[in-house]
């Protein structure tokens, strides 16, 4: 059969719709989430093209101009363009959230694998530590860490990362414990595979699949924690554009009617977090419909 573009697109589309029919609402949630994430991701990647002004430019127009005309989302008291700051701000929040999720997943997965596989006193102690951290309000812990480390992109990333390590640890440790008992692992052991080999070749690949969903949801949560820390003034130095910080700055203009200074940065945090959540939920429902029910 000769390839025709129209037929190709038609095929893709019908597959798409087919998925929609098969999974129903979940499919649309996944799609919407992916679109939101893609949109904001491209905002971060092509900030220079999208933003009309430099986010630090203190002379883009009148002071505290309401949205409209040259300024899609108005200007702040230093005559900076709010929309441009939103566009550039996406870089900061995405960088922190994604990096934090990577750091915590790496630590959590490794520790969880080891702990679950070898067990013993090490497992007991580590589980206890992880459970204590897990049960404590994450934000309060992050506040303490952020204050300890001082402002900075790396520091805030670490502060956010710390609180998610237990999430991965608990998930991976549990999975490892059950996979360890599976027949094929027993078989591998019987033919004399070493501990690290079993862990790496048989257990790790099976565990990693389940962390994908958690990873996405984790980013969504990290986004909100990052914004919360900078909102409280604990996260970042001021010469970095950030939504949480802009929100905190705009707060004092609340009663004078400059609503745009708080509305847009906060809405962006919500939308981005929502994007990742929907992505995660959609994935979860499609990959494993029972995972999130409880």
């Amino acid at each position, binding site marked *: 059969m000769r390839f025709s573009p129209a037929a190709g697109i038609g095929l893709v589309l019908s597959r798409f719709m087919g998925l929609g029919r098969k999974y129903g609402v979940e499919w649309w949630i996944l799609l919407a989430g992916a679109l939101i994430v893609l949109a904001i991701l491209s905002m971060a990647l092509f900030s220079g093209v999208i933003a009309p002004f430099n986010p630090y430019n203190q002379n883009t127009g009148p002071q505290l101009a309401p949205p409209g005309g040259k300024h899609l989302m108005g200007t702040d*008291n*230093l005559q900076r363009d709010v929309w441009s700051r939103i566009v550039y701000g996406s870089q900061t929040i995405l960088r922190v959230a994604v990096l934090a999720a990577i750091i915590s997943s790496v630590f959590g997965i490794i520790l969880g694998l080891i702990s679950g596989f070898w067990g013993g006193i090490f497992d007991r102690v580590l589980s206890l530590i992880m459970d204590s951290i897990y049960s404590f309000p994450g934000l309060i812990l992050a506040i303490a860490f952020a204050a300890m480390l001082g402002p900075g992109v790396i520091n805030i990333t670490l502060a956010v990362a710390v609180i998610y390590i237990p999430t991965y640890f608990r998930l991976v440790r549990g999975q490892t414990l059950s996979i360890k008992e599976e027949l094929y692992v027993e078989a591998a052991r019987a033919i004399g595979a070493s501990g690290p080999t079993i862990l790496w070749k048989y257990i790790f690949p099976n565990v990693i699949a389940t962390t994908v969903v958690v990873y996405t949801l984790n980013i969504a949560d990290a986004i909100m924690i990052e914004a919360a820390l900078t909102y409280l003034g604990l996260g970042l130095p*001021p010469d970095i554009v950030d939504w949480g910080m802009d929100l*905190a700055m705009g707060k004092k203009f609340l009663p004078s009617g400059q609503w745009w200074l708080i509305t847009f940065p906060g809405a962006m945090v919500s939308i981005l977090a929502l994007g990742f959540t929907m992505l995660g939920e959609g994935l979860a429902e499609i990959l494993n419909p029972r995972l999130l029910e409880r």
Partner: protein
Amino acid sequence: MRIAKFLLLVLVIAALAFLPARSFAAKETMVYGTTEKVIDMDPANAYDFHTWEIFYNIYQGLLRYPPGKTNLVPGLAKSYAISADGKEYTFKLRKGLKFTDGTPFDAHAVKWSIDRVIALKGDPSWLVTDFVDHVDVVDKDAVKFVLKNPVAYFPSLVASCPYYPVNPKVYPKDKIIRDPSELKGGKLVGLGPYRAVSFKRDQEIVLEVNPNFYGEKPKNDQVVIRYFADATTMRLALEKGEIDFAFKTLNPSDINDLQKSKTIQTIKAQGPYIRYLCFLSDTPPFNEKVLRQAVAAAVNRPKVIEKVFLGQNAPLYSMVPMGMWSHIDAFKTAFGDGNIAKSRELLTSRGYSESKQFAFDLWYTPSHYGDTEVDVAAVLKDQLEATGMMKVNVKSAEWATYRDQWKNKQMPTFLLGWYPDYIDPDNYTAAFAGTAGSRGLGIYFSDPEWDKKFVEGQKETDLKKRTSLYKEIQRMWTNEVPTAPIFQGTLYLFAQTDVQGIMLSPTLQFNYGPIHRK
């Protein structure tokens, strides 16, 4: 069923919520809103302006400032005399005064209080110990302060909080009190016009007229200070008429709106509060005064005020604030504002150019001076970089860390603010450029010539000679630039239109007594 009961409960609560509000008592109560905090409860340890303001209404000094004025008048002392060498001050006390519990007020009480401050070594105790050698009781009604060195501005020190006499029968001799409940009687009472009847930290303080006060009776019965956690809420409370007046500190945007309001009156006064940029002046790069000058030249003060403070506050061209004797606009004459050409010229002379930019860190602290500070730093960065030859890295640290860093010489330039300890040019100059004071503020400026001038200024009693001396120091400032002044705070107080008798003073002393409703 349980849910139905629950809903019923919620309904009942909601119904209660809409019962009519109680009308307020007949007593003339003035409600004063502020975002400040009370840090301390003992005159021997209090060292912040808001606490001092309250204490100024509860206690009384030997000398005092009349409402809204900067000249000293007799307080608990009727008069004083200075010995020929300027080292002994003898105060004649008012007769027949009694503390609330009947304890008579006399020279012993004064000596006891000063000795207590010295012994307790509280935070502001240096305002006594640096100057006073010891206190002698001359007789029941006369007390003599013997100084270590002659100090021209000793009377203004005597008017400050650590010098307030307290009741020896009520205050513990050997311990700083943390809470009024630790006092005998459990209430803060002194010889001033008010006494505190209730104290709830961060919420409210209730002051009532002190029936034993010797002076003019306050025109209200009660002042309640309401503590607001943020300016936004305070502004709304003022607009709704829930508080009678609001003082310190509203956001620039709120001040702007309130000034336009027809139902709120604005009371404005020059504050003694100054803001400036410090240079770490014994360490490269800012050990070179030319670079300090280059930064000072590029600063555009009116623009900072316009952008960050929406036009409030006043540009400041000297470390000695406007309104104080000897003030001159030294920096305006020497550099002007946003003098890019001059700044470029100075930078070029040190070998910098647009391709070889002068890069340095500019530090600020994000909450200690309010949340406008980040904007101040951002605007300064923008102004300095407008020269095209400077690259400014803005960095921030919370106050505790900030202090650590200035001690450890980690901040080449940083923003600071100053509230005076006493009202004298000495406290605005020697504190920054005298060797000892300068080290304490992380500036590390030291010049024996300058130190000599400061000592001269402290000893000299003739006002004319002192004036010309401090004018000279201000001119010298533009050459050495240990610090660059930026602006002077304007005090804004907003009140309901029927409130009268509010007098703000550049000394920051604020009497509640004259305030009343029309």
